[in-house]
């Protein structure tokens, strides 16, 4: 009995996961999927959606200051969407 529950628990999430992967995700969905991990990298304070110089939608990662180590770990694309890194500084309640 326990064995069957375990199998169901393991199989169903993996099915729904592969389903997600097959659909082409919007920039909003891609950002949402990755932001938790991005926000836990040292120095990352924000993840948002904006436009680059050419008016193209980009995922913008905000840093509290220059951080070569973190910047080296950041992808330049996420699932086909360009990533732009900006120094936004420390964000404080005002």
């Amino acid at each position: 009995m326990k064995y069957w529950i375990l199998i169901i628990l393991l199989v169903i999430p993996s099915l729904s996961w592969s389903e997600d992967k097959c659909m082409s995700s919007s920039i909003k969905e891609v950002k949402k999927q990755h932001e938790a991990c991005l926000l836990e990298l040292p120095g990352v304070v924000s993840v948002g959606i904006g436009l680059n110089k050419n008016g193209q939608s980009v995922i913008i990662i905000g840093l509290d200051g220059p951080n070569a180590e973190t910047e080296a770990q950041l992808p330049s694309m996420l699932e086909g969407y360009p990533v732009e890194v900006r120094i936004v500084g420390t964000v404080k309640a005002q």
Partner: protein
Amino acid sequence: MANELTTVRETLKRNRDQLLKRSNVVATGVGYKITGGQKTTTLSIVCSVTKKVAASQLSSRDMTPATLEGTPTDVVQTGIIRALQSTTNKHRPAPGGVSIGHRDITAGTLGCLVQKDGQKFILSNNHVLANSNQAETGDPILQPGPYDGGTYPDDHIADLEDFVPINIIGLPSECPIATGTANLLNGIAKLLGSQVRMQAINQQALENLVDAAIARPLNQEDVSDEILQIGTIQSTAAGELGMAIKKSGRTTGLTTGVIEQVDVSVNVQYGQGQIAAFTDQLMAGAMSQGGDSGSAVLDDNNRLMGLLFAGSDTTTVINRIENVFSALGVSV
């Protein structure tokens, strides 16, 4: 030339009081006479009046003489001259854009008035009106805020009515393993139809959407629908990329900016080592400083679209007004 100026200034000094007694004169000074819209090279004594009136309608007592001790006069219409309204002073009725705060904080900004059950309430941030979750309903709100000299009971303008608690956490946890585990457990919980979701330790149970609170004015006549330097709110609007925005705040007054990012998830510091994670925020360039928190943010058509609450040297972070309204159950 220098001598001529000295002479005219002395003439003005001798005649200033009698000029200012005339009913329409609000200011006197020395300047080049303007004739037919053109500046001349002739020095004159300039009398600023609230309104130019035909000589036939003035009593001789209120008439400005054409010359004074040989110096020509010039009459210029300037309207009523008011002191620039300080945002840190006491205002009754208090408009949006002025200093306000819970009695235990420094000072923030009175955003604007909102309606709930047919009554008017003051809208600002939780960290301005409710001392970052520390306050209790009914606590006194001062205008101006304590940092600007507001004291209880003299400057007591309202009582805290309601606030949206902010989940404030410590520093964020390390990512992959902890969140991975939580996600797996959440997958299971989802399957079991559970309402409970596991969270990685140090990750807040709920992400914040707003830093918002309302206060009930002691007297409805003590508050104004106006926002300093902006006017009245026309309606509401949803913030979008590229939208031109403005705010009127205690510290930096009227400033403008552009929405540069939407759907922003951002970690905001609430004092040392205290961080709150916010989602679905709007981000603009630098247009605020400490004390501007709580400012109402409007678009070019005076449509209310956000509530300012945080920022850095280069950015301003704004709650979506639709999230504020639904969290507090209020409207414009």
